């Protein structure tokens, strides 16, 4: 027995649970606009994550119960599933999740010790190893030439087969970010590109509403003090300012900044990925640097890089810098802030 003898209610399990809860509005909108395949990916990733977590704990001779119930593996699974196309073959989800949990998390020491966001490592491994499968994004509700039934989607995920007369091209489409890139390459102007049906009010049709779902979840996390405002606010501001600067300089070739905020995984990153406490800085100044860097890199990779989205690599690049950022942003302690 030693002091303090009392403790505030709260646990890692509860924190992770609230983050999972906060993902639900985004997931619901996702399933509404793009079909229930995403729910299958999430379920598959969850099962894989828990099984991998258990196996790794066993191998590392760690107790199973406290770690399996901490919800951290589930969170990694959900974030990874949300980052990859729902119409991916089952093994893509499984491989990505297994890699994220076993290599990116447990080989570094498990919960609390991984320098990189495991879900983003999983995503990076998949997009480098299986780039083609990573482009099977479903067309939003009402936009595809054809819409697959849930049974058809299941058949493709687990059997790799479409019903007769249906091709992959007919049901999938490039993401708004991808379309923008290819159309710009083809010499079209931004205003013309935005007339295409894939675009909605701010960014992609449907996906912009999923982004709103993530914002709703993020606000819930902010109000429950699970996350602080610094990372999301600074990341979104940095992305906005960078995109805005390019847009102002050349509006014909660079889209308005709000498009970037509501495209791809920007909102998911702002509220759910960058805010992973294990892989982000602990000091306030550090959080500003980290989030500003991630916003800037996301834009640069999206616009000038070869990948459809820049969030994952921006996150990982900033994850590398965290120990350095923390070391150089130590705040002055009580009474040692210099002469006032």
């Amino acid at each position: 027995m030693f002091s303090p003898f009392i403790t505030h209610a709260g646990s890692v399990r509860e924190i992770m649970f609230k983050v999972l809860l906060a993902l639900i509005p985004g997931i619901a909108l996702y399933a509404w606009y793009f079909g229930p395949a995403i729910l299958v990916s999430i379920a598959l990733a969850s099962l894989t994550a828990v099984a991998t977590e258990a196996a790794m704990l066993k191998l590392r001779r760690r107790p199973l119960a406290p770690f399996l119930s901490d919800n951290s593996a589930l969170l990694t699974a959900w974030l990874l599933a949300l980052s990859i196309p729902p119409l991916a073959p089952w093994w893509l989800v499984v491989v990505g999740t297994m890699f994220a949990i076993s290599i990116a998390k447990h080989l570094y020491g498990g919960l609390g010790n991984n320098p990189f966001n495991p879900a983003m490592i999983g995503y990076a491994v998949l997009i480098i190893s299986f780039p083609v499968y990573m482009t099977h994004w479903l067309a939003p509700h009402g936009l595809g030439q054809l819409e697959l039934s849930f049974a058809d989607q299941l058949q493709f995920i687990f059997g790799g087969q479409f019903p007769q007369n249906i091709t992959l091209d007919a049901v999938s489409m490039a993401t708004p970010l991808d379309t923008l890139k290819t159309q710009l390459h083809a010499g079209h102007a931004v205003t013309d590109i935005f007339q295409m049906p894939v675009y909605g009010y701010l960014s992609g049709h449907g996906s912009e509403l999923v982004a709103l779902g993530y914002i709703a979840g993020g606000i819930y996390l902010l109000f429950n003090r699970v996350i602080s405002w610094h990372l999301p606010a600074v990341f979104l501001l940095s992305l906005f300012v960078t995109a805005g600067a390019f847009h102002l300089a050349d509006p014909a070739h660079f889209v308005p900044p709000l498009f970037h905020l509501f495209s791809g995984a920007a909102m998911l990153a702002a509220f759910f990925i960058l805010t992973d406490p294990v892989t982000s800085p602990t000091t306030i100044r550090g959080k500003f640097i980290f989030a500003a860097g991630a916003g800037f890199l996301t834009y640069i990779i999206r616009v000038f890089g070869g990948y459809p989205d820049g969030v994952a690599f921006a996150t990982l690049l900033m994850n590398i810098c965290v120990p350095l950022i923390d070391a150089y942003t130590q705040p002055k302690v009580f009474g040692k802030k210099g002469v006032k």
Partner: protein
Amino acid sequence: MRTLYHFNGGVHPPTHKAQSTQTPIMQAGLPSRLVVPLHQHAGNSAKPAVQVGDHVLKGQLFGMPEGSVSSAVHAPTSGTVTAIDMQVVAHPSGLPDLCVTLLPDGRDEWITRVSTDYLQTNPAELRQLLRLAGVVGLGGAVFPSDLKLRPGTQKIKALVLNGAECEPYITCDDMLMRERADEIVRGAEMMRHILEAGEVLIGIEDNKPAAIAAMRAAVSANSLNTMEVVVVPTIYPGGGAKQLIRVLTGIEVAAGVRSTDLGVQCFNVATAYSAHRAIEHGEPLISRIVTLTGNVQQAQNFEVLIGTPVNELVALAGAKADTNGYIMGGPMMGVPLPSDQVTVTKATNCIIASSPALFPPPPPSMPCIRCTRCVEVCPAELQPQDLYWFAKAKNFGKAQEFNLFDCIECGACSYMCPSNIPLVQYYRFAKSEIWANEREKDAANLARERHEYHLLRIEREKQEKAEKLAQKEKAAAAAKAAATTGTDAKTIEALRAQVREIARPASEHPKE
């Protein structure tokens, strides 16, 4: 309205103060025996001033202060000294310390008490009076008050009187302020006089309206226009001296800095009360208010003689059957008592009977996820998660670099930690390891210096011998030369004397 300042973080644990403030302070009375430790204060232990078998009067000196940081210890009642020996004291280490055991004679007969007119006495004498009266800080740190009443390098603008009492369960200061506000206020005025302080700010948390009212009434009754009762927000550890000074004056007293050098000083309200008893009534510090609460039938505050065994005190409140131990102090910073046989000291502000239901063992620790809830609540503005990491890795150099010694061990970080990591324990461990290393290093340095000096001395003696030999030979040669060249006998005799002088062993030379 006075501008209040803010300190970082803090927590709001349930206060549990209502149960012990229902009834007035009760006299605990005479126990069967009193065991009074001679080391109840910061600094050196007091030197025994009585012998076994002595009959002593209430207030008679048991131990004299020894060295500059020390304080006196007195007989809490009249009776016979039956032992002066090592006994287990109220300290978490469970290690024994030198104690005087007194068998009360039941007459409770005082020594002659002399009242001192503080306005006619110079501050140095008043400080000496407080030192001999054994007045120490009753907020828990038990630092000798006379030392804190020495002026610093600049004029004391504010004397802060700490009535915040932020720890849950503890209500001894609250009840003292409710019932004895007048004496506290007068004691504070004496302290202000000694320090020549500008104003007295009495900080009381807003969850003590009765104490606030009583103190305000006492201040106006004594028409002290340099004294003000300031209501501060209830937040733990808002009653930490550094935190309260910050809230009331905006001044941040860093670790290792004397607050008087920044123009401010802070005393607990009970210390001011004791100073008043000592100066006005000639009564040394032989009793204090103790909150008895937790797993008991009737939680209450008692005025307890120093040296009263905890088990006899607890009997007055009636510990419930499932009581599994006692905590001295509050649930945030208190220490578990090694047994209920130990006795009340000047540091005992509260005794909480604990039970598994009241303080269930914490769930097993999980790894740190760097969530920084500890950073958010740290009043010292540290990075507790980094300190934890360094302490765990035994990287003590880094821990010190990250200001480990600025940690006040308030426990707010541990309280908030979602991973239930006993953070403060890690810091205490790191601090004690660093102290132990420093002691070892000091010892090694001393040994090395001694050894080097020893070698130096041997070398010097060797050199001196060689020089003397050379001189001797030279002198002999000169004598020989003189003899052959016919120098007079007187000169030869002088040279011979010189040779004899040189040839004498080194030890016979007078010390330089």
